[in-house]
């Protein structure tokens, strides 16, 4: 009895420690975004201070963060939409037709996880430079689609594999065509998988730096590129970059709270049941 008690106390100490470890860095950056430089740079971290909105005013007036926000939203939404559509059809095609090479093709998709990003970046950079697409939002969108597709297809495969074939057969016996059966019967069942693909692809695209850095110009900067330009300099403007960081991460965290239960269901749909 005493032993169980001790184990339970130990468990809670570990959990609370991990909670502090997880939350503190995030809170610090959010708190710093409301601090003046004088309050940020103190030897002893300052907990009580007079909040200011100056950093946010600066972010919107001295930098084009509003524009970057819009650019990021366009890139994240369009690349995610394309990923979902392509992955959904591919996963359905690979699971519902008893294709002989289905497993080989599915593995081929997963090989995409082995391609070093840098090996894709330079050739795409050269090609986009040649055809005049460099500096447009098309670059990051295309790159993010390719980077997200392998995992998305693989993740949805798990969901489609779990659907009993009888469901589809029944719909077709009732007079649906194959695609009608797909839209009306199959799709509603895999909504959690779609939600997982949505949040994982969207967060990747929203947060991705390397391609956006190399393929955009001042007018098409995304949020991470904008932040990198504050940080990359010799001295970091902590107030400004903390405000920009808060503006970037809070929307994603809020969306994440809404769909987080789907993430868990999604990433293991195929991998765990089996």
């Amino acid at each position, binding site marked *: 009895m005493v032993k169980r008690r001790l184990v339970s106390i130990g468990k809670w100490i*570990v959990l609370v420690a991990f*909670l502090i470890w997880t*939350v503190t860095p*995030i809170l*610090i*950056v959010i708190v710093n975004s409301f601090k003046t430089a004088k309050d940020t740079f103190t*030897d*002893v*971290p300052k907990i009580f201070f007079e909040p200011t909105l100056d950093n946010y005013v600066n972010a919107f007036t001295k930098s084009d963060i509003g524009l970057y926000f819009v650019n990021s939203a366009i890139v994240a939404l369009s690349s995610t939409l394309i990923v979902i559509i392509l992955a959904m*059809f*591919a996963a*359905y*095609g*690979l699971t519902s037709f*008893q*294709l002989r090479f289905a497993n080989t093709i599915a*593995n*081929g*998709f997963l*090989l*995409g996880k*082995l*391609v070093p*990003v*840098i*090996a894709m970046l*330079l*050739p795409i950079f*050269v*090609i986009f430079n040649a055809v005049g697409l460099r500096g447009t939002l098309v670059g990051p969108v295309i790159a993010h*689609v*390719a980077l997200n*597709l392998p995992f998305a297809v693989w993740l949805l495969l*798990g969901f489609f*594999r779990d659907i*009993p*074939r*009888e469901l589809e*057969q029944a719909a077709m016996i009732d007079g649906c065509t*194959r695609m009608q059966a797909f839209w009306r019967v199959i799709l509603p069942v895999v909504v959690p998988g779609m939600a997982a693909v949505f949040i994982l692809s969207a*967060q990747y695209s929203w*947060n*991705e*730096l390397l391609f956006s850095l190399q393929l955009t110009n001042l007018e098409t900067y995304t*949020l*991470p590129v904008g*932040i*990198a330009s504050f*940080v990359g300099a010799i001295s970091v403007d*902590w107030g400004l*970059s903390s405000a920009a*960081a808060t503006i970037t*991460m809070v929307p994603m*965290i809020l969306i*994440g*709270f809404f769909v987080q239960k789907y*993430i868990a269901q999604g*990433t293991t749909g195929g991998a*765990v049941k*089996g």
Partner: protein
Amino acid sequence: MTHSSAGKAITKRVAPNYARKDLRLAVFLILPAALAIFIIMIVPLGYALVASTFDYSLGQEDTAVFVFLDNYIRFFSDPVALQSLFNTVLFTVLSLTLCIGIGVGMSVALKSLSPRTGNVMRAIFAMPLLISPIIVSLIWRYMYDPTYGLIYYVLGLFGLEDFGGLTETATALYSIVIVDVWHAVPFIILVASAGLTMIPEELYEAARIDGAGALRTLFSVTIPLLTKTLVVLILIRGTDAFRVFDLIYGLTGGGPANSTTSLSIYAFKQAYENNQMGYAMAVAIVTLIGLVVLFGPFMRNSARGKED
């Protein structure tokens, strides 16, 4: 299992009427995604492979000189390149081990809570996952700041303010591993938690009746039944760690004295700072080979696991 075999039997009977039209539809459905991967990933990879056998700089492709394997020979006689290979492997092994260990441990602890508390905790634990690596590096640069950073403040309380952090070659890479663990453990927790919910409760029941303790249950029930999830986690997290770029770019840029230069960072520097395109491509191809050697076996396992 029974579902799919029954499904197969039905399809076989119906198949002849549909076969040809079905095949066309299937190809039509799979082709766009396959083409997208092929055009945006495989074609550039082929380009990189060819480019790695030339010595040239960006914008001056006309003066490219064919050097065949010279860039690869150069890689293996270039101390910085070898160090970046070593850094990458060390980073991957450390980060992966810590992430899986802590992540699975936390998931097990979370599972023992009431569903409601567990879910709230999981949602909070998941937050770092959704933050951009460049922001993560920004936050942690502040945390690691020798004068104002919280880390040094806490270490100072224990008289450990001599810790080198990001500024000394001996500690910089380990300091980045800590940041990567902070960023990536949430992903492990999410996936492993879902994996744990799939383990039938009866097995724990049986272990309890047999008088197995908590540790015994962990190693005899939980871990073996989590194998498939673990393989997937190693594959996804491992390939991401091996390709690490953003985090190092934002935290140290590869310094001090190349002690945190990863293969991706080195390739990037060769391409965009030294304008050695052929060599940069060779470094990228070496990265690819490293990934295949380390994670190829896991990929085959995960595929085989899904066929049954």
